[in-house]
């Protein structure tokens, strides 16, 4: 476009309705921003009060500064544990949900038993059974001649942690997956079947893609909860955030310093996770945007 054509264009008349709408919109925007600033200030004030209070009570931030790196090294362990466990838990949950929804009574029985047993017992007990209980049975099996099987029941602390978290969260997430699958309208299944898709093809191609999109926020929630529950594996001496914080806190009786540091690290992890989950959710909503 040349300069002349731009100039020759008649000046657009200001549209009264349009400018009123614009004004309203910018007003709303300003209000929202102002609201967010106010909420942010409250957060800042609360943190400040906490900090000042603690400092008055001989809280030693310098100690945190000295041992900050040591505890930080546990972040990767915590994350690794959680990521591995949420992946395995999702597979277990999918199998569990398919089992619960299956017509087959054996599949239904196994899935129902799994969910009931695992949800009905504390995670800490599950960790103890896997880490301390299984080797005991393994030794017995070895003495009966099943050497390899017996040996395989002795798991490292990290393996035990991942197994326990996966089993535990797999049971809770079974119900999430089941609800997600059941929330897809029956017509979707009928349309797929009428095209000649098998039950499994219908599940894989039509139902699951829609169900997973719906349950992404719930899986995100579970992932956040799991990061915090992974602190329990510190009882086995896995060098993740909690274990590392506890080690120094105990040695120098600086519990408050070390555990506040640990708490802050978990908090940051969960904030980042929920931000990532929101982005994933938005990306997956693509097909549903008008």
């Amino acid at each position, binding site marked *: 476009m040349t300069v002349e054509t731009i100039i020759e264009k008649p000046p657009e008349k200001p549209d009264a309705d349009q400018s009123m709408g614009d004004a309203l919109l910018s007003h709303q925007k300003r209000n929202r921003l102002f609201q967010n600033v106010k909420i942010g200030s409250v957060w800042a004030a609360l943190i400040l009060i906490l900090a000042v209070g603690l400092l008055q009570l001989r809280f030693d931030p310098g100690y945190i500064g000295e041992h900050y790196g040591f505890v930080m090294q546990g972040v990767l362990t915590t994350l690794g544990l959680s990521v591995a466990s949420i992946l395995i838990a999702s597979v277990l949950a999918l199998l569990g949900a398919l089992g619960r929804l299956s017509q087959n009574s054996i599949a239904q029985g196994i899935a129902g038993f799994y969910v009931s047993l695992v949800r009905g017992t504390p995670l800490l007990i599950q960790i103890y059974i896997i880490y301390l209980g299984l080797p005991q049975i393994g030794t017995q099996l070895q003495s009966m001649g099943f050497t390899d099987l017996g040996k395989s029941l002795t798991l490292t602390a990290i393996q035990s942690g991942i197994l326990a978290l996966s089993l535990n969260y797999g049971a809770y997430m079974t119900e999430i997956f089941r609800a997600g699958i059941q929330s897809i*309208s029956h*017509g*979707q299944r*009928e*349309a*797929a*079947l*009428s*095209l*000649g*898709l*098998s039950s499994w*093809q219908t599940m894989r*191609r*039509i139902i699951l*893609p*829609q169900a997973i*999109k719906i349950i992404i926020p719930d899986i995100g929630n579970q992932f956040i909860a799991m990061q915090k529950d992974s602190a329990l594996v510190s009882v086995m001496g896995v060098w993740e955030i909690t274990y590392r914080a506890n080690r120094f806190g105990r040695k120098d009786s600086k519990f408050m310093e070390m555990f506040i540091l640990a708490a802050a690290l978990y908090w940051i992890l969960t904030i980042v996770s929920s931000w990532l989950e929101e982005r994933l959710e938005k990306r997956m909503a693509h*097909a*549903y*945007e*008008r």
Partner: protein
Amino acid sequence: MLMNDNVIINVERLHKWFGKLHVLKGVSFSVSPKEVMVLIGRSGSGKSTLLRCLNFLEEPSSGVISVAGETVVTAPGKRVDPKKILALRLKMGMVFQEFNLFPHMTALGNVIEGLITVKKMPKDEAVAIGEKYLAKVGLLDKRDVFPIRLSGGQKQRIAIARSLAMEPQVMLFDEPTSALDPELIGEVLDVMKQLASEGTTMMVVTHEMSFANDVADRIIYVDHGEIVEQGPPDQIFNHPVDERTQIFLRSFLCGDRSV
């Protein structure tokens, strides 16, 4: 009855029970190739169930269903081989009241889903067929659009294209316009009229009496799970013999519903 050239669908003594409810009471009928058969009746009369039993979306309690050379015999307590059901389903395309498009796939994705997943067709071949049928229902320009951005009428036309793409021998329509706004009904009926004029064998459950009058070769009036009366539109609409048919049609005329 033996299958011959003049019968593409044959149903014998079809029964359907929903618990204690006897929805279909031994229905028998046959459909000739290229015939357009319209089922009418009150809601709850069993006409939709009849259609859904043909492709086993509802499993018949007992009876014999033959479609284009595939025969399935059902009896209480007898498990039907899933392969037989699949073979039967591939003979028929079905269009639903609520469209049931797959929301996570584009219009084209919907139309080629069966070709790729069921017929294991290479992608480019499936796309060519998919585009052909999108063009047939006049929506080739919506190829890459997701269902949420389509109007009800467009959705239903895509759903028709999706069924047609599997190149079935019979098309089943289960109240295809009942969920549509009045101004969108015409475009769907137009596509169906075109299919009928091309010689597609069709079974249609509908309340669109003028469509039935214009397009049907035969009308079947279903009441309480039984075929009460059947015949060409002129006979059913203008000279119904059975009293129940008369009452039903009169209530329709008074109800101001597109007659």
